């Protein structure tokens, strides 16, 4: 028996979300975007394994980075599958394998661990460049 703090492995399926697209179009990268994007839907079984209830927080770590998001229960999902809207949050998790014809941002192998940390602010996910 593993403890919830050890976390679980998840395949995060990223998908287009029309409400998120509209929020981005209307308000840019503001609160409404963060509220909709920083959400992962997990199966009830996985929520139980993590010892989490609806709207608790989880830290997801993918091949390229970590984010803290809210969890929601989704009865239609099988254990081991998580669902998130494609966003700056999934872009933080996703990697790229040289030579590949696709981005590894659709099915992202991740680890989920319960956390008390705050939701990752969307501002922290924006890549800023040092202009010459």
């Amino acid at each position: 028996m593993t403890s919830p703090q050890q976390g679980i492995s998840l395949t995060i399926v990223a998908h287009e979300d029309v409400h998120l697209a509209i929020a981005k179009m209307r308000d840019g990268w503001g609160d409404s975007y963060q509220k909709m994007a920083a959400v992962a839907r997990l199966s009830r079984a996985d929520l139980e394994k993590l010892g989490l209830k609806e709207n608790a927080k989880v830290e997801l770590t993918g091949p390229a980075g970590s984010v803290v998001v809210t969890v929601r229960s989704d009865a239609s999902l099988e254990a081991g599958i998580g669902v998130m809207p494609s966003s700056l949050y999934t872009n933080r998790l996703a990697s790229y394998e040289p030579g590949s014809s696709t981005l590894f941002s659709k099915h992202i192998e991740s680890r989920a661990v319960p956390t008390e940390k705050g939701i990752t602010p969307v501002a922290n996910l924006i890549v800023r460049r040092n202009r010459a």
Partner: protein
Amino acid sequence: MIERDGGVPLSSRTLVCTGCGCLCDDIQVEVDGAHLGRIENACAKGAAYLQAAFNPERRAQSTIRGQGCSPEAAIDEAARLLSRASRRLILGLDNSTLETQSVAIDLTRKLGAVIDDASSFSYGPLIERIIKKELPTCSLSEVKNKADLLLYWGANPTATHPRHLSKYTYYAYADFNPAGWYPKVTLSSIDVRQTELTAMSQPAFKIKPGGDRELISGLAGESPTVTDQARQLSELVKKSRFCAIFCGLGLVHSLDGDCSAFTRMVQLLSQSIRMAVIPMIAETNMLGFTQSLRKQTSYVNQVSFADGVSYGREFSILEQVHHQAADCILIVGSDPFSTLPQLLLSKLHGVDIICLDHFSTLTSEAADVVVPTTAPGVESGGDLVRLDGESVALAELIKGGFARQEEVLRQLLQKVRP
């Protein structure tokens, strides 16, 4: 002309929505000068796009390294950066008109640069097989009322193309069952999760992430063990007369650039029934870009003009960024800073980035030089190729006061030194 309260006339116009790949041509808008009034027929996504296009706060501004400047100064600086660079990359263009794409290819050729679009990491392999006629396709008007099986594979149009079902496919059918509830066509879907579409589908096939290949080999008769799902899907397809497959990014990502098994499956099924494959491209003119580039180079994407015409994976956006191959990138009407993994974007430090766009985006915020342009379909016209290969003409709705993308590119074409 119609009148608003107070008797001041408003201009009522019909336009093509460029909010997604559907390019709905029946959008009615009321325009008062530069202000947008009522919008009719548009979906929520299209309406949000049009409202943003009319919102001055969402517009890109002329800047050089974050400082405001005139558009002319921004174009001069863009020309200077492109001229001094030795390894230039031109990317984006999937939401640009054919006219813009043509000038961009000319500019790439003059500079001996690399050109690529998002098709190189999405629909490119599928589009190439459709262009080469290895995969059968048809227009959306041919699908409507004629196809008796609509199969959405790894696609959820309710999220990506909100009017696809109502304007072009399922709900657009004229004949309904005797009770009057359902159109006389079978709607089916293949997806890894439950969506609004799978709830409507009869049947919906739920597969595991990456499970597309198993289904394809089962349908193609290439697998020694055929799953129940593959058998059920095979029976569904074979009892139809005309099956239209709408391929989404879910399928494309599972195939990872290798469409050979999918092509064999479609070709096999085509021996007994009519099949048509239509990619669910989200961009407004990805098909136009790939067709234009192929006409000039024989390749749909990933082309270098450094030494004649070369094609290869090393010229894809992803490889170019990953290997820091370019020292100057011109991005036209695209926002890679909001779509690419941040791991890749972090490799762009020290690279000169020039952005042409009508919207303020994460890419325009990150760019060294920003040249604002007109919004295609609102402030400028032009031609597009819809996701089913049909030509669509955009009209100029209002005068925006910005230069068109192709005008900016023509100026760059004159000013740059290879």
